[in-house]
């Protein structure tokens, strides 16, 4: 079923919207949730929560990219769940690793509180990503948006794990420089 047809089902308040969403994007959403939560039951619950959020958001919303819309919902839901649940224990899943890596990107001097979770920071990251070649950009997104394990990226991109790590290491350094520069310019 095409995305627009699924969205129409939401607009008609047809419960088939959920089953159609599950059929088409269930695996995608579950994978995102599972990577964050490392628990089948929690992941499934977050996927269901995300469907419910979509149900409440459409209408009035009409997402242009349903897959990305759902992905963001389930990612946010899962991150919030992780904060609240026992899954926050150290060493579980990709989150601690990704966070540890991202720590390297934080500028030494920054307008900390002004940035917060603001759109400015997202915009700055987007500018950084668009300045990268497509493979590098996608590897970065696969790692820090989808939280894909290094091993999986190495397999999919035909590179050694150490090479993926090196590439991400360089990109984090570049992002740090980029953020420092943006901070200076803003």
């Amino acid at each position: 079923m095409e995305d627009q047809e699924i969205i129409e089902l939401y607009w008609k308040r047809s419960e088939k919207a959920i089953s159609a969403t599950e059929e088409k994007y269930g695996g995608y959403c579950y994978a995102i949730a599972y990577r964050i939560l490392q628990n089948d039951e929690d992941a499934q619950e977050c996927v269901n929560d995300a469907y419910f959020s979509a149900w409440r958001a459409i209408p009035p919303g009409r997402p242009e990219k349903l897959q990305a819309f759902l992905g963001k919902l389930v990612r946010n839901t899962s991150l919030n769940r992780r904060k609240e649940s026992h899954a926050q224990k150290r060493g579980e899943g990709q989150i601690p690793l990704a966070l540890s890596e991202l720590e390297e990107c934080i500028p030494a001097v920054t307008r900390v509180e002004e940035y917060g979770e603001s759109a400015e920071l997202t915009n700055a990251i987007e500018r950084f990503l668009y300045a990268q070649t497509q493979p590098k950009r996608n590897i970065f997104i696969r790692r820090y948006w989808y939280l894909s394990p290094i091993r999986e990226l190495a397999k999919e991109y035909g590179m050694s794990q150490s090479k993926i790590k090196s590439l991400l290491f360089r990109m984090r350094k570049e992002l740090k420089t980029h953020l420092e520069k943006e901070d200076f310019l803003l």
Partner: protein
Amino acid sequence: MKKEDLLNAIGNIQDDLILSAIDDSKESRPKRIRRGLMVTLAAALVLTLTVGVGAASGIFRGLEDPFAPAFRNDGSAPPLDRELVEKLGHPVGVSATDQGVTVTVDSVLRDRYTCTVVTSIAMPGIEKQEIDYEAMEMSGALDGFSSGGGYTTNFTPGDDTLQIIRVWESEEPFPEGEATMTIDTLVFNRYRFLREKKVEGKWELKFDISYEDLSTELPAGQVLSVEGIETTLDEITISPLSMMVKHTAEPGEADLEQVIETEPYERTLKNHLEELACVITKKDGTQFFCPGTFEEKETHMQSVHGDSKQQGEKLKCWYVLRFDQMLPLDEIQSITIEGVEIPLA
């Protein structure tokens, strides 16, 4: 700013960026995999092995068809050189059917260090599936060769057939003779994550992998300097399909420890040693690059696979470059490795 802020901010990037990363990962790209993850079934299920009549009768879907998937399919590569194809490969046409799924080995194309097998899997509704090609195992003549890669393509949507291109690469020359490819359980996973769907069965396909070795060895023994470390070229072998470079680095005791033991993030020197900068220059000026970085827009490489192992205070390194098209050796002017140009006689 906290690291969580960054993670959250990344979470809100534009939809196109998010989707592009997924689309890219599903492209028909060569991928390196490690063997040893084969799914093994406790109980062998019924296997129907049918040796296709195609090979005997010479009935194929056209000479180029079985081989074309072995190379990139974006339309920019030149047509396959039929003379080279006939020397380096065979159409195969061997099929096995189990659980309503038919697996066919369409072709094999190989040289001294690489072996590419084009396989078709026919099953109703297979079109949008992704197959876990790690579950495909080769044995027989290829038994013991542990590296390689694979990728999935589907050139004819709607025909319920998916093609898997499985590549084996090795530090040692592949033997000739009969190979057996065994698939124990097909694993489908559209997003390569979880929620797998499996068709439990067994498909075993035997086929000949003999070929004419068109490889040429270039003069070796050159001493190169890689980030201050001396390394000696031991072997440079090139064929129309790939190039193998073997070399021995002698970093000295202190540097060797640094190369091998340093934290993964810092192992750029080891990466460099495992994939020396290399340019193949054709007589018409076209250049093929070893994609040490992504900066080159067109490398003409399908894959690069490098590895190394310590021998005393030395580091034995090798890497194999697979071209994205056939490269007739008489069209090559020279090969330049780490700035040292080696003409092709």
